[in-house]
């Protein structure tokens, strides 16, 4: 793999931290779109150009860079009010948790019995770090929209893992995964609106209460 791809993976890791630390949903959506586009371009950089890799790139960039952000912005604009709900760990705690997860991912990846030509790459630690950051965002954010973004980050991490196998991965599998993702985001967009309408708050931690007002 070229070192340029490794440097793009560093950018992906930084975007993880940005998403964990930002308190604006719009910034997080733009960042996850950028992450998706950067990752979408990666197969072109690491594998020789072929027809099916070009198609995968096109689909991924379209889905993650255009379609999903559009759905998320649509869901965001339908929520009339936007309260500032700090995550359970706090913003600084989130960033620190993300940084610790990244360090652990690097330490863990160094011990994995990988194929020798994968040993030196950033791909495996970056994938693990992105998956862990996605988990942290899913678990600690209180707004449904931020949880969706955490879910997307998780999927991006799995996609980075898939980069090692792009040559073996048939086009249909990748296309099916993307379709599932878009359907999932679509459903979540509807759910976010429903939460906003029914509970007069978008704090998902309140949904465990039996009554509306406490």
């Amino acid at each position, binding site marked *: 793999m070229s070192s340029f791809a490794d440097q793009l993976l*560093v950018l992906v890791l930084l975007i993880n931290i940005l998403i964990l630390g930002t308190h604006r949903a719009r910034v997080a959506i733009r960042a996850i779109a950028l992450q998706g586009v950067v990752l979408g371009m990666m197969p072109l950089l690491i594998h020789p150009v072929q027809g099916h890799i070009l198609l995968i790139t096109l689909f991924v960039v379209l889905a993650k860079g255009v379609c999903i952000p559009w759905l998320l912005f649509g869901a965001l604009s339908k929520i009339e009010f936007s309260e500032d709900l700090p995550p359970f760990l706090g913003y600084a705690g989130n*960033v620190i948790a993300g940084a610790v997860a990244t360090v652990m991912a*690097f330490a863990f990846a160094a011990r994995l019995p990988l194929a020798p030509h994968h040993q030196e790459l950033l791909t495996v630690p970056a994938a693990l770090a992105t998956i862990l950051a996605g988990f942290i965002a899913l678990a600690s954010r209180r707004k449904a929209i931020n949880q969706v973004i955490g879910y997307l980050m998780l999927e991006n991490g799995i996609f980075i893992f898939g980069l090692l196998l792009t040559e073996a991965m048939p086009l249909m599998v990748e296309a099916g995964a993307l379709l599932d993702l878009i359907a999932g985001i679509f459903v979540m967009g509807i759910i976010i609106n429903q939460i906003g309408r029914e509970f007069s708050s978008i704090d998902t931690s309140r949904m465990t209460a039996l009554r509306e007002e406490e």
Partner: protein
Amino acid sequence: MIDLLIHLVLIILIPPLLPGVINRTKAAFAGRTGAPLLQPYYDLYRLLRKGTVFSRTTTWVFRAGPIVTLAATLAAALFIPLGNHAPPLSFNGDMILFVYLLALGRFFTTVAALDTGSSFEGMGAAREVTFSCLAEPVVLITLLVLSRLSGSLSLAGILTHSSTTLWLASGASLILLVAGLFMVLLAENCRIPFDDPTTHLELTMIHEVLVLDHSGPAFGMITYGAALKLSILSALFLHVALPLRNADPYLDWLVFVISMILLAVAIGVVESCMARLRMTRVPQMLLAACVMAAFAMILVVR
């Protein structure tokens, strides 16, 4: 010998020029003519001619504050190589001394502020120390990473090692270091978005509120010390960010001075384009700088 003389002359004469350039850039952005480029020099001259007022509640600590701060910053300036020339002083491990000299200067500024007993100055001291807790690790981690890359333990070896080949080899970690260092450069020198040097409200000040009670030559020393710190950290930043060097030593000096002025213009542009951060967001930004420096370290060490 000539290089030593040029180093001393530059490090003494250049600092007040940088705030002048920054202010001029900000004025140009706002559509004003702005103060003359050499205004900081005139200000220093004016302050040095004035008398000083010392409050009766203060002790010797208050008087020692500006002197020790300026002396420590000047001593730190002797360890930084300027424009690819060896610094006057250098030994293995001097990077730790460099960081601690800057910390000593900060310590005496804050102690002098606490000595006045003013509540505003105590608040400023608390903020200053809190934020520098987060800014110092960035500088230390940066120096560690660079020392690992260059295999040297002295500032001279660390900072003159960075080159275009190194940038091609480990560009990602260097970009992270440069971004972290730029944030620290802005935070440590009280520039927007971390602190507004022109604010008029004590409640929102960080660095300015520490020196409210100083006057005359003592205040001149503080202003000069702040400008000196700006130029030291700028030189540190430029060594990492712009590894330009040729065989001709005199051309190197010229390139160094021009790049310092360009960096001051860049700081002015950043200041004109950004609003000040809310006080609670400042530690988060500095934490982000720490995380970036730590990432760079992971990338280099693994």
